[in-house]
């Protein structure tokens, strides 16, 4: 089962009337959408409002989603259109260049520096999260670090990681889980985010 198929399971649950499943999709993609919108909308106070509007629009439109594209691609388009409508309504121009049409949201226009449009508190919190994750990764035993890097960075399946590391798939599953838990234990104190540390 690929990540797209895992998303499809959650989408089907939403289409059967399960709102909780949509909450899981929100929690999965909210950072990507917030980052995307922060490139388009200069005012940090408006980014979260537009993101919320985009997610609600997606929820309403989900019965018509047939899975021809990946869920995130579909969500991305809704977010971009919502931002365009917002900017048109407020008679302002988007802050980014034409490169914001990139669908995966990963290779954005690098001239738009994210830290310029975040609040100082949010910038501090971002740096703290990144440094904590990096420190936690460095502190992991080698087999756990290798397993989670092969999964998250290289995108290998458990079977491919098992072949690469010469161990059973069950061991790979356990190592990735333990790595995540070890990092999460360090992150959790930082994630009780106060309102003044938002965008």
């Amino acid at each position, binding site marked *: 089962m690929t990540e797209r198929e895992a998303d499809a399971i959650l989408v089907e649950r939403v289409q059967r009337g399960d709102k909780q499943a949509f909450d899981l999709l929100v929690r999965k993609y909210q950072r990507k959408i917030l980052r995307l919108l922060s490139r388009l909308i200069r005012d940090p106070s408006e980014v*979260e409002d537009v993101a919320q509007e985009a997610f609600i629009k997606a929820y309403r439109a989900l019965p018509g989603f047939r899975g021809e594209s990946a869920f995130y691609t579909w969500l991305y388009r809704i977010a971009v259109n919502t931002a365009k409508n917002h900017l048109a309504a407020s008679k302002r121009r988007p802050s980014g260049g034409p490169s914001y049409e990139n669908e995966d949201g990963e290779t954005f226009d690098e001239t738009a520096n994210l830290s310029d449009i975040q609040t100082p508190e949010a910038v501090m919190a971002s740096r703290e999260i990144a440094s904590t994750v990096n420190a936690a990764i460095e502190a992991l035993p080698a087999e756990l670090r290798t397993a989670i890097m092969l999964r998250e960075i290289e995108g290998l399946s458990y079977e491919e990681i098992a072949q690469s590391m010469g161990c059973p798939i069950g061991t790979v599953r356990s190592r990735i889980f333990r790595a995540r838990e070890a990092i999460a234990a360090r992150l959790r104190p930082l994630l009780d985010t106060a309102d003044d540390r938002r965008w």
Partner: protein
Amino acid sequence: MSAVQSRQFSQTNPNGDLTEQLSAFLDGEADAPEWLDTPHGKEHWETYHLIGDVLRTADLALPVSARFTAGLEAALRDEPTVLAPRPRPVARFMRRYAMPGVSLMVLVVAVSWLAQPLINPLGPAHTVQASAPAQDVYAANAPRREPEFADYYDVHRHVAGMSGATQVDYAPTRD
């Protein structure tokens, strides 16, 4: 993992097996655990995704404010539950079997109609009716046996011997 690390780990995660299933589901390698929809499950779900996002790009090391989370949850609560229309079984049957069947039948009829002059250049008048029994066809086409020529037929058969033509000639008739 050392014994000390393992002990620390088990202390921080009393639901290890269930959380491990969630971790595998996140990677598309297991089914969703039942407790995924609980606050505890959602917290793990979100944190694990954050870890993956940050490992891929530091740009996604973003704090999501409690205001945003609470606001979106409230907005979703106010939304009427959406339901995708399910395809009706009859419609599904029609789409899967009946329509292709009808299309195939139309195609066969059309091809037969167009190819008829090639198959039977003499025209439809010379086409043997497939629905008629073979015996009836023979009987209809066979010359009538007149009683006064019976002797002639017997002599003729004796001289000519048995052949396909004579077999047809002597096929039994209804009269």
